Each structure stands twice: as C-alpha cells, then as structure tokens.
C-alpha cells in the first residue's frame, strides 16, 4: 500500500474549477452538506464559516473534507494519509484522498490510490468512477468501459452520466450526450442534488449544436452568481474544437464572474498565447500564478514568455496574383537568418496552393513560429513539456518544431509546415467547425498531393490496423484522435483520415472534398455532412471506403507476412554485406508494398545493394522510385544527387538538392554545393539565397559564402553588392585566390 508523502498544491476556496466542481458522492458526511449548499449557491463567506467549524470535528474524514473545501490542502492530505495508513482496508478515505490528487492534477498518484481502493473492494463504484475520471482527463480509451461498468452497477451515479456526457461532447456525439444528460437530470431531480454540472453540460451541448446556451447560463447564475466554471467549461469545449477566439470571450467572462478562478486565468493566458496576443496572456498567467503558484502549466508558460526576446519577428507580404497576404515569422535569433527565406517561401507557396484548391483567402496575418527546443514548443502549445507533436495550428497561428530540434532523418520540417498550413485553411474556412478527422485528413492528403514530398506514404502500422479491421466508421473517426483505445491509434487515425480524403477525390472528384468541408458550419455532424455531400448514408460510405482502401492495398494485405519476411531477409543480407543476396528480397518487398519509405525502406536497401554491386543505373532507378513514393531521407537523396551528377544528369541533381532544404536546411555542405550548382546553372537568385544561408551557418569560414554572394550578385547585375561581398571575402581570407582573381577582373572591367 502507498505511503505517500507528496506535497499537494495549495488551492483556495472556490478556485478549484476542474471537470467537476460539485461533489456528488452520496457517501459524503451529512454534516458537510449544509456547508456544501452555501458553496454551491456562491455564498462564499457563509461556506467558509460553516466549514471552519467542521475543522473541529472528531471525525477525521469530515475534518479533512472541511480543510480541503477551505483550501488547506496540506492539512487535508495529512489527515487522509493518516486515515489510510491506520487502516489498510479503508476504501472511502482512499477514494477521497485520490480525489484530492485528481483535483490537484496529480493523475498518477490519483490512479494508484483508486487502484488500491479497487484491490480492497473491487466493486467500489466510486473508485471506478474516479479512475475513469483520471483516464478521461488523460484522454485515454479505458475511460468509457470503466464508466459503463460503474453505471451498470448503479444507474443512479450522477457523476457517471456526467462523465459519459462530457466524453460524448468532446467526441462530437451530441445525441448520445443529450441522452446521458437526461439520465443525469432524472437522478438530480429525484435526489434533489445541485443541478449546476448538468446545466453546464446542457449549455455546452446547446453550443455544440450551434444554438444559444444563454438560457442554461441564466439558470446557473441564478443558482450561483459566482459560478464562473460554466464559462470555463464552455471554453473547454470550444478549445477542443479549436475555436480559440470564441473560447477567449468565454474565459474572459469566467474571470469576470469569478475573479479568483485561477484555473480560468491560466487557461485564458494559454489561449491568448495560442492567438499570439502575448501581453494580455502574460497578465492572466501572472494572475493565475499569484493565486496558484504551483501549477506547472502556468509556470512553464511564464518561463517561456521570459525568453520571448530570444526570438526575432519579421513580417513580409506574400503577393499572389492581385492579392497580398501578410506572413509573420517568429524564429529563434540563432537560426532566423538561415531559415527565414525557406520558411517564407514555403508558407507563400502553401498559401498559393490552398487558396486556389479550397477557394478561401486568409483574412488575417498568418503567423508561423519555429522552436529549436522541442520543450519550448510543447510549452507553447500545451503548457507542458514532453508532448509528441511536431506542429500545432491555432487558426492563423502555426507553432512547430524547428529543424534544429530533431534529427534530420526523422523530421521533414517542410512537410510539417505544409500540413499545418492546410489546417489554417480548413479551420478558417469553416470558422473552426471542421471536425478533427477531416482537418487532419486534408492536411495529410495535401502532404501527399501537393506538399514538398508528394507520394501516398502509408506506414506498416496503418496497414496492420487495416488488416485487423481497426479502421473506424467515418462518423466516429474523431474518437481515434481524442480518446485512442490502442497504442498507435492516433497515427492510424491520421492515415485513415488521409485515405478517406483520397477516396473522396478518387470516387467523386477533388471538388467534392471542398464541398464536404463547407458542410461544417457548426450545425452538422460528420454523418449529416457525408449524407448531404455524397447522398449516401455514412454506413454505405464506410463500405465503399473499405472496398477502396482494400483494393488499393490489396497486394500488401494479401502478402503482409511475405512482405515482412522479404523485408527481414533483405535487411539481414545488407547487415552481413551480402549485397547480391539482398537484391531479390528487397525487390519483392518493394513490389509488395512500395508505399513503405520509412528508415528501413526496401527501396533504400535495394539501392544500396545495387550500388555495391556496381549496378549504378539500377541503383539510381531504385532511389528515384523511393523519392517518387515520398521518400525524403536526406542522406539517401544526397547520395542520389551525387549519382545523378556522375551520370551526367546535373539539372536533376540540382533540383534534388534544392528539395533537401526542406528536410536538412542547417547543413552547410548542402548550401555550399547547391550555391555553386545554381550559379553554374544560371540560377543566380536562388544561388544567392544558398550563399546567404551558408554565411549565416558557417561563421568559422565566411570567405566562400561572401565569394559566392559576390558572384551571384554580379550575375544579377548588382555590381555594388558584388564588390562589397568580394571585399568582405578577401578581408576574411586575403589569400583566397579565386576571389583575388575576380577582384582583378572586376578592376580590369572598371578601367
């Protein structure tokens, strides 16, 4: 059993707005209830007086609950701990202690205590509900079966119905949420419980349906005029739907109604950061910190804000036809000079592509932020370090990892930016009503179709899920992102969503994908939008999609084991340097599953083996097939570029190297070689960009970069700029002979 000595954070009365602010536990001691009533009605002073008296109670649990309600978390913690340690089989104190941990966001400790309670008494529904709440907080798939199990045991568990409704709302299952709320309301009426939580979720449901939640808000504020949690909860669902502006309005209202609702201040601060409103964000985060100095999310965000000066901001116009769009880049000063031209170029190209494809023109400045430290990015988007995302889009603000934050072989920053920019369009075109699956699906689809690494890349995990029939019905696809029920389901859901978009394009034409997107105006579910667009029921859509995807991947599905075998055999032969033995299995693996272009791709093995056997033309063909399929490994493509050069295909080699800037932009050798190639090819403007990047990257040896810029500018007719960089080159390296030769030529021409 646990002997926990963890320090709990100190919270103040009335500030503990989490998922549940009303305690519906029927085992709650009778003497607490009159105090609770004051609290639920917003009569703070009366509640405080009432709870204070109970601190003298002879019943430890009552004393602990009173201390908890008064914000003396340490005292409550101590009493619960003593109660648990004095009785190893005590269930209720354990469950209540776990609740305390849950409310203070210490989920692992809470889960351990709920599990201990269930070991003592496996059928304790409150322990089950508590554990389900932990899972729900972490968006883990076990939440649902556990809450269903608890409700089977006791259908009067208000909290069980509320938790179900909350998860339904998060997943967009609005009718199911309504049914759960009806069941909760029946119990609330029957047992005369405070209706605040039910009304709050009713308001959320109304809003999710595109209606006006005001009638429910009025009822809540009539019951408790200081119940800011209703606005915080409404904001939570808006944030879940990525409607950050709308959430901001609600969170501002929350802190107006209840100025000491520190969690709402914290959320408001984070949300304002998402929108790029930095100064006001800092004000609310500081307010949150003043009331709750222990919140890791608040502290992390404030720390990041303290270092905001390390980033430089630029704003540039992107002109596309008659339209001009503003792009703001927030890049770390140490790499902004290198990355800015490439980020700006790709952002501009994505705007050009998506305005044309989706018929939507951005109405505000698009902001792109790149973070060289992944934890800074994680804090920026979730206020917590350690999340596994690469990029996040908050409407017109894109935040993502910088290429320097990850190994070049595992991160193609250009594709990530392209993916995120597609979100800008799908979110803004639908006023953020697009469901998660479709927004992700279009982003993946656009990576495949128009991104910097075109090719339908589907990893083996997705093929395995397809084989095991784990793809979800389209109407439920959001749950695969929000509450995954098996490891890797989020990644599989990305792939399935992309494939659904591909299916729509192939079956009905690309225009219909845009038509489907426009269905989402806040009033339609996925099922309704599918029916309205394609005139078929979601079930029929699923059936056709299943046939499409099984047909597309029929070869690998029918031979998945064989593919694994061939892949393994090729890998082993490569490892043992038995090149000839690698060729046939690698060829077979490529033929069975050409879409596999990951690190252990058979395309790469085949190319390597062929090259080792001096079969260079075939090796080139193998790497070209890999590249066409969407492969982008910088090492492999640099090799291919070299081979193409040696084969006299200089132009293709140069173009291939240009593409490396979107995976490996911090490689000085690439910029140096590319600058020379582009100069030779007469592409002086592009060459200049490469030498500028080289100069920013290679501070140790600046002369070649200056010399390259001098030549590029000379080609572009900028004699003054050329002279300046030439002299800079020679000032750094006075004996640099090519630069000396050019200087003398320049003087000769002048005279």
């Amino acid at each position, binding site marked *: 059993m646990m002997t926990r000595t963890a320090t709990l954070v100190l919270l103040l009365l009335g500030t503990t707005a989490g998922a549940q602010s009303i305690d519906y536990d029927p085992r709650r001691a009778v003497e607490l209830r009159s105090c609770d009533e004051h609290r639920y009605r917003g009569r703070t002073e009366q509640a405080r007086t009432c709870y204070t008296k109970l601190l003298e109670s002879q019943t430890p649990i009552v004393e602990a609950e009173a201390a908890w309600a008064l914000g003396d978390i340490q005292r409550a913690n101590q009493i619960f701990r003593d109660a648990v340690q004095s009785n190893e089989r005590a269930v209720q104190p354990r469950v209540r202690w776990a609740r305390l941990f849950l409310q203070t966001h210490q989920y692992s400790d809470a889960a351990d205590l709920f599990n201990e309670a269930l070991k003592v008494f496996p059928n304790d529904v409150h322990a089950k509900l508590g554990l389900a709440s932990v899972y729900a907080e972490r968006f883990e798939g076990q939440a649902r079966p556990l809450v269903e199990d608890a409700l089977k045991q006791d259908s009067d568990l208000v909290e069980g119905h509320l938790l179900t409704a909350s998860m339904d709302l998060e997943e967009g299952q609005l009718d199911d949420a309504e049914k759960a709320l009806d069941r909760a309301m029946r119990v609330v009426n029957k047992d005369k419980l405070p209706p605040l939580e039910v009304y709050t979720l009713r308001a959320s449901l109304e809003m999710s349906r595109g209606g006006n939640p005001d009638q429910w808000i009025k009822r809540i504020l009539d019951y408790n005029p200081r119940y800011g949690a209703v606005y915080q909860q409404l904001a939570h669902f808006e944030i879940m739907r990525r409607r950050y502006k709308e959430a901001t309005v609600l969170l501002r209202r929350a802190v107006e109604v209840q100025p000491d609702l520190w969690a709402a201040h914290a959320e408001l601060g984070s949300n304002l950061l998402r929108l790029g409103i930095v100064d006001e964000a800092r004000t609310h985060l500081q307010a949150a910190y003043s009331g709750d100095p222990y919140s890791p999310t608040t502290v992390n965000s404030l720390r990041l804000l303290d270092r905001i000066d390390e980033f430089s901001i630029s704003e540039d116009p992107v002109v596309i036809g008659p339209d001009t769009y503003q792009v703001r880049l927030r890049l770390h000063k140490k790499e902004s000079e290198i990355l800015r031209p490439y980020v700006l170029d790709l952002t501009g190209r994505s705007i050009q592509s998506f305005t044309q494809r989706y018929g939507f023109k951005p109405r505000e400045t698009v902001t792109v932020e790149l973070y060289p430290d992944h934890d800074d990015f994680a804090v920026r988007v979730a206020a917590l370090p350690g999340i596994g995302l690469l990029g996040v889009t908050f409407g017109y603000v894109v935040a993502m990892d910088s290429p320097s934050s990850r190994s070049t072989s595992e991160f193609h920053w250009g594709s990530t930016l392209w993916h995120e920019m597609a979100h800008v369009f799908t979110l803004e075109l639908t006023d953020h009503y697009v469901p998660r699956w479709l927004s992700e699906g279009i982003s993946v689809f656009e990576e495949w179709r128009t991104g910097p690494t075109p090719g339908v890349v589907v990893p083996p995990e997705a093929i395995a899920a397809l084989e095991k029939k784990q793809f979800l019905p389209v109407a439920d696809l959001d749950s695969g992102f929000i509450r995954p029920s098996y490891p890797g389901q989020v990644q599989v859901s990305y792939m399935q969503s992309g494939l659904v978009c591909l299916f729509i394009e192939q079956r009905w034409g690309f225009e219909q994908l845009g038509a489907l997107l426009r269905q989402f105006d806040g009033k339609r579910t996925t099922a309704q939008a599918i029916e309205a667009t394609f005139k078929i029921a979601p079930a029929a859509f699923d059936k056709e999609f299943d046939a499409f995807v099984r047909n597309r991947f029929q070869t690998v599905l029918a031979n998945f084991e064989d593919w694994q075998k061939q892949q393994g055999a090729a890998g082993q032969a490569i490892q043992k340097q038995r090149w000839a033995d690698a060729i046939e299995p690698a060829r077979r693996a490529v033929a069975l599953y050409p879409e596999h272009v990951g690190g252990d791709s058979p395309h790469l093995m085949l190319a390597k083996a062929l090259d080792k056997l001096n079969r260079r033309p075939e090796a080139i063909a193998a790497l070209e097939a890999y590249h066409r399929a969407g492969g982008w490994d910088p090492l492999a493509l640099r090799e291919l570029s070299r081979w193409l050069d040696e084969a006299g295909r200089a132009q293709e080699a140069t173009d291939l190297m240009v593409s490396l800037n979107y995976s490996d932009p911090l490689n000085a050798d690439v910029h140096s070689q590319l600058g020379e190639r582009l100069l030779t090819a007469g592409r002086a403007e592009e060459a200049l960009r490469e030498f500028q990047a080289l100069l920013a990257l290679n501070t140790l040896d600046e002369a070649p970069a200056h010399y390259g810029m001098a030549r590029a500018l000379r080609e572009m007719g900028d004699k003054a700029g050329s002279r300046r960089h030439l*002299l800079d080159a020679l*000032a750094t390296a*006075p*004996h640099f*002979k090519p630069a000396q*030769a050019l200087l*003398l030529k320049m003087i000769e021409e002048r005279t």
Partner: protein
Amino acid sequence: MAAPIALGATVNEARFISALLATACALPASAATYTFVVAGLGGEPAYEQKFREQAAAVAGAAETAAGSTNNVIALSGDAARADAVRREFKTLASRMNANDSVVIVLIGHGSFDGENYRFNLPGPDLTDTDLARLFDELPARDQLIINATSASGAVIERWRKPKRVVITATKSGGEKTATRFAQYWAEAVASDAADTNKDQIVTAAEAYAFANGKVEAAFKAETSMATEHARMEGDNSARFTIARLGTAALAPDNPEVAALLTQRGTIEQDLNRVKEQKASLPDTQYYDQLEEVLVRLALLQREIDAKVGGGATP
C-alpha cells in the same frame, strides 16, 4: 604572428617560403618540426581500424608539411605499446634541439579514475604522469600536444607549460564516451576545409576551430546530448603548421620569391590597419581603402604565383 615552423635538417628553401606564406616572418634556419602520432588500443575491430586511419592521415599530413618522413613517427595497433612509445620518444629527443617544435597526437581511448588519467595501449597503459615526463624530456620548447582520447580533459591543467599548447577532446576526465574529435582533426589536416584564410596552410588554431565546430555540429544534427567538449590551453596555436596544401607544399626554391613575400607581409600589415578602422570609417571609405590594399595584394600574389609556378586557382 610569432615565429615557428617546419624547418629541419632536410628543409629546403621551398619549405622556408611556405612557412613565410603562412607567417611572413623570418625563422631560425635550424628550427624543425617533429611529429609523433600514437593510435592506442581500439578494443574492437571498428575502433582499431578507425584509429589507425586517423593516425595515418595525421602522420601523412605532417610528412607533407615537413617535406620528409624523417621528422614523423607514427605508432598504431600492436606496435603502440608503452615501451615502444617510450623508446620512440627517446629517438625523437635525440634528433631535436631547443629551437625545434614538436607536435604530439594521441588518438584512441583514455580513462580517468578521479586521480590518474590513462592512455589505453596494448599491454600496460601510460598515465598522465608518464606522458608528462616524456614530453618534458623532449628538448624542443615549442610543443603542441593533442590528446584526442576520451577523458582527455583530465590532463589539460597537468600538462600546461610555457610555450606548450595542449588540446584535449573533452573538457574533463568525466567525459568518458569514445570521442569524435580525432576524426575531425584528421579531416582538418587532409583537406582544405579547415584552411579558413585560404593560405593553403592549416595551423593548429584552424584545425582546432574546425574539429571543434564539426563535433558540435555532429551532436546538433543528431539532436543528442554532446558527450565531448574540446579545450585548448596555451598561447598562439596558429604558430604550429600541421598541414600544407597545394602550392604551399610544392613551392620551388626561389630567392626572388622570398623578397616578394616580404613585400606581401608589408601589404598584409596595411590590410590589418584598414580592418582595424572598420568601425570608425564610413562604409564607402572603408571599402575603398580595403579594395586598394587587396588589389595590391592580389597583384603581388599573381607575381608570386608566376614565379612559384602555382598559378591562381580558377
């Protein structure tokens, strides 16, 4: 720049010219540079091979720089035993005098137990104290010691001495992971990548900056925590020439060139004066003055190249 460099019993004027190309300073005619490279115990075939190749690259560059194999000793594999190292140090000591320079390169694995550093060799290791004694016994006062092994940072303070430059691959004895520094040091001496002032001579300062930068970049590219941080102690590491490239290695014997090089030294001083005024001069004036000096330098270089036979690189 202060005096140096690669002059020995077998030295000819070509190498004297090359030295001036780097330094524009006259040297005591008897001074020579000796190089001793030891590749220690690899422990496994891949390391054995890597260390041997690195040692060969460093030794090869030193031979080119010295213009002779006589000034270079390299031990690797099973030959690099402690007694052999001691013996070769003695041989080396017997050849040199106080005006000579010596470059010692240690490649391989090292260890540090909190008190003693050990250079891992086949058979008994050599400790930092053993090695310090061997270095001290060399008559040459100008010493460049590159300890590229793991845990090499443990020795940097212990080996410090006037006129000695010590370079270590790690910042302390606590950095115990196999190092990458030697690989990039070998790269620095084998190509023009480290020659940042483009004079076709790689000095210890340039090689250190190059290798250090490469190590940092390698860890950064892998987004892995850096397990080594190189250090350098001692003044004016640029006085040590560790590689000569292109015409700097091939320049013929020609007294006229020496006169031209003296002129070039004067122009270089003019150049430095202009550069020093960069902050105080208006841009236009700075670049005009820079151009005037650099044109003079380029014209003179053309003359030198014509006499040496190197010619300008296209």
